């Protein structure tokens, strides 16, 4: 039973994380977040510096 509770918590956390990312994608200024929060390339660091 506890394992079901644990995966429920993980599932909710993942949904929350995705919802937050989507929210950030639409609310963050375009100039600051052209990658929609993706950290897959070197531009992430540049953006951090600009912020």
């Amino acid at each position, binding site marked *: 039973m*506890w*394992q*079901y509770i*644990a*995966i429920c918590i*993980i*599932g909710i956390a*993942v949904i929350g*994380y*995705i919802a937050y990312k989507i929210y950030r994608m639409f609310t963050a200024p*375009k100039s600051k977040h*052209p*990658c*929609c929060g*993706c*950290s*897959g*390339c*070197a*531009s*992430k660091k*540049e953006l951090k*510096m600009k912020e």
Partner: protein
Amino acid sequence: MRLSELRTGDKGVIVKVMGRGAFRKRIIEMGFIRGKEVIVIQNAPLKDPIHYRVMGYDVSLRRSDAALIEVVSAADFEKEQMIPAQDTQKSAGPSILPSDNELQTIALQKGKTINVALVGNPNCGKTSLFNFASGAHEHVGNYSGVTVDAKEGIFQQNGYTFRIVDLPGTYSLSAYTPEELYVRKHLNEEQPDVVINVIDASNLERNLYLTTQLIDMDVRMVIALNMYDELERHGNKFDHESLARMIGAPIIPTVSKTGFGIEELFNRVIKVYEEEDPVIRHIHINYGESLEKGISNVRKILKNNVDIPRSLSKRYLSIKLLEGDRDIDSFIKTLPGAETIFQERDRNTAQIEELLQEDCETAFTNARYGFISGALRETYEQNTIKEATSTQIIDLFVTHKVLGFPIFILFMWIMFEATFYLGGYPMEWIESLVEVIGNFVRGHMAEGPLKDLLVDGIIGGVGGVIVFLPNILILYMFISFMEDSGYMARAAFIMDKIMHKMGLHGKSFIPLVMGFGCNVPAIMASRTIESRNSRMITMLVNPLMSCSARLPVYVLLIGAFFPENASFILLALYVSGILLAVIMARLFKRFLFNEEDVPFVMELPPYRMPTGKSIMIHMWEKAKQYLHKMGGIILVASIIIWFLGYFPRHSENGDQFDRQIAEIENMELDSQEKADTIEELERLKAVDHQQNSYIGRIGQTIQPVLAPLGFDWKMSVSLLTGMAAKEVVVSTLSVLYTGNADDDSQALSERLKQDRNTEGDLVFTPLIAISLMLFVLIYFPCIATISAIVNESGSWKWGIFVIVYTCVLAWIVSFIVYQTGNFFIGLFG
């Protein structure tokens, strides 16, 4: 805070006076020096000028001039006090009145911050110098245009704080390219305290051209004579101290890749900032009688115009007006009395052109080169023994019209061979480690959904992708070597003809090859291409360059189905990407961007042996990005895919399989036969469960579209999830292809090879693997790439266009390959 921001009655203490030349000197002579108190007596009715009291004298300054004086005020003091008050949770009252001493202390502290701008030609080592000085890890390459935006770094030396800005490389300060305008704007608007002009010691004449323009701008400058080791190695003699005295700017030899001379360079910056440098002085380049007369005439008119900020050098404005600089023309047009200025300019331009029989801009350029030539004749002695340099010898082969291509292909092949085979060893170690962790969790945890999530979802999904880290790092090592050594520029050179056939310039090849690492910075690097048409085409075809995120998919499928010809297949995939880019660029040029382009010069920098440190920095940065992705998007995607594949838990078919298994267990059969039957039923149950899971339903919905390409529903789902990031294709395959793996084989490649559908046929064949790899190569680049295209093109239209064309193209190419392959297999098989 600037002096102009103080209100009537406010008091401030001077931190520093910005600006340049005579204006700055006069302001300082008036008593506006660091540490002195200034009081605002009153603003004039129209808020300009402002009446100040400094050192007991009353002076009035224009608001624009006061804006060039940095002060610390009571408000600044209050802010500084609030920070420690917040830290200690004490309430700091709003009315803290600082004593004069306190304000002076803050002013003196703030005065020890020096704003420095790095200016220089492309590929002269500015970014290396910036990295070494500031401890940053900005990307460095041995080709022009690495810096496409200004980058800022802060560090301390000898009690001073340096705020350095690495500006894009420019050959001059004309108004022809966005970089030139950007640098000029930065120097005029930000007014750095000291400019470091980085010049390449192996190419003095061309680099000093920019220096002459900085002299015209009247900026306080220190020259970094970079790559000094190369000058010495060639046996050339350069009396840089004499040249420094001649041009009134200290020259410090540096080698930015080793750090030689950088400490001394910044010590000299401090001296210049503190006005203690014995060399610094403002000189006027003598442009010859005709031009000087023109400058003098225009300058007189400009001096009479009260609307021109005093901080702008009138001589510089005059020169730029005579050169016909569009940017300065637009600025002058905004001023009252612009007509008179233009009339005087036109009159003098006509006179100069008549006298010199050449246009004014050319006359100035020639005069500058004349000045440089004269200065170098006195100070520079080239080694008379004309040895063929190593660069010339290497170029003889690598840029040869016949040998160039085979060498390029050989280099690429070595790169892929190393990526695949050298990477194979650490890959196996990581694979074993993932397996050990998986088995540990499997053996020590009670049965249940959390255990399944950990083993199949997280360890299977993330572990399936993390094993490819060594391959990616090796690929990056080669790309960094190509960039830093100067070979990338040669690759662009030999590709120039092909690029022209594509409707692009050779210069576009650099962003395209950068795309092998990551498409996003490659798209950003296309900013350096002057022509909009070429820039747009380069951006649109860049997603066809196979980025390192696609490498895990290739390594997985090639390792499973083509272990004997791995490098050849890998090379063929990359070449396919390039060929498709050629075809698409041609089509885009024909139908979308068919205007003629402006010509440009492509430079070939000398070869330099990249330092181990620089390559390690590139690899470390990439490893960090990859691991960050593992903990982010890939972990989240793996968990979601597991959830969608795990639920719903019960189905009618599942119950039926359970009943059948129970019946078999109760039957009296041979034990081996019983075990085999139960195993087969378990396999069919697992397949049925996956097919009826949420992800199975999604997969089966989209599968009809991809079925003609040979893909089953699991591959279809992995392509769908791979839109977030290409590595997710592997993690999805890793999570989904667990159903019929036997206990001994944990490697994903083995599971793929053994996977069978309900009919018992193999799901993956070599042909399907090729079709899938081509689809992954071409279809939807990741979200980050689309965002980069939208940002750089300035329109969502182009982002949507790329999504549509890449998906359609991927489908067509995979369809042709799969159906043709099937036809031939049917014919000969």
